[in-house]
């Protein structure tokens, strides 16, 4: 074990990963900004859905642009390896802050990026081929501890592996849901569209997706299978980007999985860039070894051990809740459950004044954006948050003791819709916690 932590590897893969991730993030942020989503998602909404325990994360109004600018600049500096320690921290903090503002924008790959950025703070990704290394000769090294590179590979592998485990359910494997619904919607695509008219196509895609997620980390890790595995990565992710509106994620994974390639590959890549920018031969061929101070290394390995322990446990926390996970979504997030459910809902709220008896049916449009309403209607914790928003609003507007009831209706993976939340429960007096929400009606399949 000791020898494993003393082993060193080329610093090139980590440097390539730093550059790739930084520029992908910068591009992603510019794309987000240019589409007007900052305004749509973080400035225009009247109310927000913070994560439980993170209610102190508040929207920043027009300063959100500043937050994105800080995040974008951090990503650029991060890629260049300039003031790396500082910019890796500011990148992690600014990106994570953005993602914590509103649950309705939660995506697994944003969480992935947040967590990767957290790991990167502790890794010597700036020791090689960076501006920091150019300036600071003591930092400049061609070799880094092997475990630093492995920790990124491990995390990426976990993403795929858990995504595969999440697919082991009858909807995905036996009923080919939700792909059955999603693929036929694309049957007018050129060249491949006609395939989606066949009944076996969603089954094929479901099983291929499952086997891909399950095996790809091992096939990438194994030198013999790496090249064909990477070809599969490209085909798989490009296909998903053609078929589904999932934004940057496919491209991020295509760049990220490069990390599995050999030292030689990354060194060749970097020396090409080095020649392009007319860098010195020494800049690329240094044999210095970057190592942590004994104590630092111990602390960081301890932190990483804790991190990975949490990451392994988190996807299984749903087992602590009764009921069907896809229905209750208790313990659903932060678990690499990607593209697993087609869920759509309808939630009509009735606010009753317990004192005067007057009541009103709420027009959700007055409180929420389309996206927020769509997300809220299928997720019990958001239904509760919204009920509290309504309670507080009507308390200020002439209701002495507002009670909030919801008429909810949700369809899941092609089943006929049914009631999600007990319509007789006054949500105004329910409180959020990590406990099971007893007012979610059970789903007997």
């Amino acid at each position, binding site marked *: 074990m000791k020898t494993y932590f003393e082993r060193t590897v080329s610093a090139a893969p980590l440097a390539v990963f730093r550059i790739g991730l930084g520029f992908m993030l910068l591009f992603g942020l510019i794309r987000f900004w240019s589409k007007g989503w900052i305004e749509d998602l973080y400035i225009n909404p009247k109310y927000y859905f913070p994560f439980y325990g993170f209610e102190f994360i508040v929207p920043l109004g027009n300063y959100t642009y500043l937050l994105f600018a800080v995040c974008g600049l951090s990503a650029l500096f991060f890629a260049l390896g300039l003031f790396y320690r500082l910019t890796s921290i500011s990148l992690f903090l600014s990106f994570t802050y953005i993602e914590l503002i509103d649950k309705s924008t939660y995506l697994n790959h944003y969480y992935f990026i947040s967590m990767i950025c957290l790991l990167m703070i502790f890794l010597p990704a700036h020791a090689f081929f960076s501006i920091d290394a150019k300036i600071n000769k003591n930092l400049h090294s061609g070799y880094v501890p092997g475990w630093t590179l492995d920790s990124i590979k491990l995390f990426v592998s976990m993403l795929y592996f858990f995504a595969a485990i999440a697919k082991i359910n009858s909807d995905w494997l036996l009923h080919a849901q939700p792909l059955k619904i999603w693929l036929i919607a694309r049957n007018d695509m050129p060249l491949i569209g006609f395939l989606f008219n066949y009944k076996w196509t969603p089954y094929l895609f479901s099983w291929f997706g499952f086997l891909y997620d399950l095996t790809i980390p091992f096939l990438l890790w194994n030198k013999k299978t790496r090249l064909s595995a990477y070809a599969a990565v490209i085909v798989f992710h490009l296909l998903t980007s053609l078929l589904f509106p999932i934004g940057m994620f496919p491209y991020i994974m295509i760049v990220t999985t490069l990390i599995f390639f050999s030292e030689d590959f990354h060194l060749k890549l970097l020396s090409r860039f080095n020649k392009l920018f007319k860098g010195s031969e020494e800049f690329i061929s240094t044999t210095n070894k970057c190592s942590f101070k004994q104590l630092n290394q111990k602390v960081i390995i301890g932190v990483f051990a804790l991190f990975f322990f949490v990451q392994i446990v988190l996807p299984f926390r749903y087992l602590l809740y009764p009921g069907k996970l896809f229905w209750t979504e208790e313990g659903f997030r932060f678990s690499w459950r990607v593209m697993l459910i087609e869920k759509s809902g*309808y939630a009509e709220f009735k606010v009753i004044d317990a004192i005067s008896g007057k009541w009103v049916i709420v027009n959700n449009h007055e409180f929420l954006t389309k996206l927020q309403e769509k997300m809220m209607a299928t997720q019990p914790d958001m239904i509760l948050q919204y009920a509290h928003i309504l309670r507080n609003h009507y308390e200020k507007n002439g209701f002495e003791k507002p009670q909030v009831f919801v008429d909810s209706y949700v*369809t899941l993976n092609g089943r*006929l819709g049914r009631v999600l939340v007990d319509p007789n429960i006054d949500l105004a007096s329910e409180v959020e916690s990590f406990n099971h929400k007893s007012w979610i009606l059970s789903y007997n399949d």
Partner: protein
Amino acid sequence: MKNTNLLTAKILLLFVIIFFSCSKDKDNTDNNVDGFDRSTMLTFIADDIILPSYAGFKIKLDAMTEKSNDFTTNPTSGTLSAFRQAWVEAYTEWQKVELFDVGPAERHTLRNFFNIYPTTIHSTTTINGTNNGIIENIASGNANLNLPSNYTAQGFPALDYLLNGIGEGDDAILAEYTTSTDANAKLAYVNKIVDQMNSKFNQTYNEWTAGYRDQFVSKTSLDIYSSTSLLINGFVLNYERYIRSGKIGIPSGAMSSNPTAYPSDVEAFYKKDLSRTLAITAHQASVDFFNGKSVKTGVEGNSIKTYLDAIEAKDLKSGKPLADTLNGQFKAIATAMNGLNPDLETEVRTNNQAMIAVYSKLQTATRMLKVDMTSAMSITITYTDNDGD
């Protein structure tokens, strides 16, 4: 490389097994391959439903325009009653086109110029220095009917007031257009409303025939700008907000406790005995559209129903097709609506429970259309509010 080949072989073998184990289903699929061809569906909806419906409405609107001209050039009890009859027929026919809130109709917000009610007789709110109500518009003589504040002072609801509600009894109504001091101003306003309806409708209809039809048929994807998405969104919005809420929910007070009901908010309030017919007609038009009943031949063709059946939209548990479930609910609604008083205002005042019962049946259907149907079709509902304003 040996490992790779072995694995590849295993995966391939698995796919082959899956392929063959499912391939007997393929034959069934091929038989109704038309079913999920959205291009065929859109073509049928355009050529057999929307365009003939518009053509049918145009006939009734033209007839009403003629009777309106007769009336305004020579207001007598004869021309009044002919105008009224033509208005009833056009208003009823309108219910069969209001649901096509897509393309030119959506762009020109056609509904706003035809059927926003209750109508505003006299407005107490001043916007940009003017009050926009029927009385104010008659007095000013130069009202701009394109202003949103004038939506409730035009169209069928405004004509309802002008033909049926401006006086007590036929003689009093006729007097408003003959002996009253501002009789000519009123006649001019009737003409203005009818002109506006003609201009807005003809614009929409012409654009449909002069190019939009081809565009409509060609946009076969399912993103938010595709024909199917826009059409379904408009259809569901019409069903939820303008049938469920507008015709039944709001008058019956199902939307709020204060006051308990708004009987005067029924459609065609001044005509008294038309509101149920309008509701039934609008609902039946939605059902026929869903089932793809050709307006030309009466025979069902490619439609939402055939599409849902082709993509096998059925409850995963019971196996019951979604289209059957919906049609069952539609039937229950039609039966319940037929049991209502022809004058829904009377029904609200005397037997509101029956109205509320229809409302909850409509609510059930709304959820199925909005949640089950759109989810099965993988359509994003691009509007999400359900206020019923």
